[in-house]
């Protein structure tokens, strides 16, 4: 496992986005189906729904294979990701940005969400892990009660511009 970076950032508008740094408009519009499945995906950018709008620890890593989800992760989602070689960035709305290098290629990106500490006041914690994959596929590995995914996951979203 290669740790690409770790930071604390403030989550706002209940979303955390991972995207190629070349994306001019990384944040996407959300439909009710996106909310239900916990993510809004398009090529080069994915926004994950979060467990609260609180300061959160974000861990970013690169693995040979996707790691086993942590036992205490309440939400685990895997999506395809095509890195264009411009680097990867993770941020929320008007937050700090965690940036790292990521070689161009096809990956699976695993998002793990952990319940915020205290009474939901935080801090929260999210782990994002990339692993190279020849045929990446979206799936919900573990869902909490907030998710209500459609029968078929929606892999289309529009930039919010």
């Amino acid at each position, binding site marked *: 496992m290669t740790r690409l970076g770790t930071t604390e950032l403030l989550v706002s508008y*209940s*979303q955390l986005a991972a995207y190629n740094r070349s994306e001019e408009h*990384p944040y996407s519009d959300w439909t009710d189906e996106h*909310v239900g499945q916990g993510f809004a995906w398009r090529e080069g950018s994915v926004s994950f729904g979060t467990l609260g709008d609180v300061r959160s620890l974000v861990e970013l890593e690169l693995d040979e294979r996707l790691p086993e989800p942590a036992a205490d992760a309440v939400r685990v989602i895997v999506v395809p990701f095509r890195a264009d070689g411009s680097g990867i960035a993770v941020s929320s709305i008007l937050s700090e940005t965690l940036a790292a290098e990521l070689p161009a290629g096809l990956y699976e990106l695993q998002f793990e969400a952990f319940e915020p500490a205290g009474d939901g*006041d935080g801090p929260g914690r999210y782990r994002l892990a990339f692993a190279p994959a020849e045929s990446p596929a979206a799936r919900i590995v573990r869902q909490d009660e907030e998710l209500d995914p459609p029968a078929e996951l929606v892999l289309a979203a529009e930039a*919010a511009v």
Partner: protein
Amino acid sequence: MWKRKLGWGLVAMLAFMAALFPGASVRTEAAAGYDAVIYFPFDRYPLTGDHIRDAIADGHSAICTIDRAGADANRKESLKGIPTKSGYDRDEWPMAMCDEGGAGADVRYVPSSDNRGAGAWVGNQLSSYANGKRIKFVMSYGS
């Protein structure tokens, strides 16, 4: 007569300066109390737009002075005692990442898809602005 000549001279000089310094309009906006205006697309995010419009009508600021460092403390104040609600996000106006946000901000439950889209739009519009920039929000209809 000499006053008229002086007047036209002044106009000509201002026109020349405007051509020389096209950013002069920004200074005009700064004099008005803000650095830039963004036009919020009400029709795309009507429920968040409704909240922003109502909050401003109630006397909250239409101007957001970007203050990322103060956002955490502002949110703790603005959302204190307001529980989460499934299917809804707690929308704050002024936003927590504005210097004008925090205690006393107006909070409304807004369906998550509308509010997250609105937040994404705001993020795409404002991410490049530095802390301290004053952004005026104006509702845009029919866009």
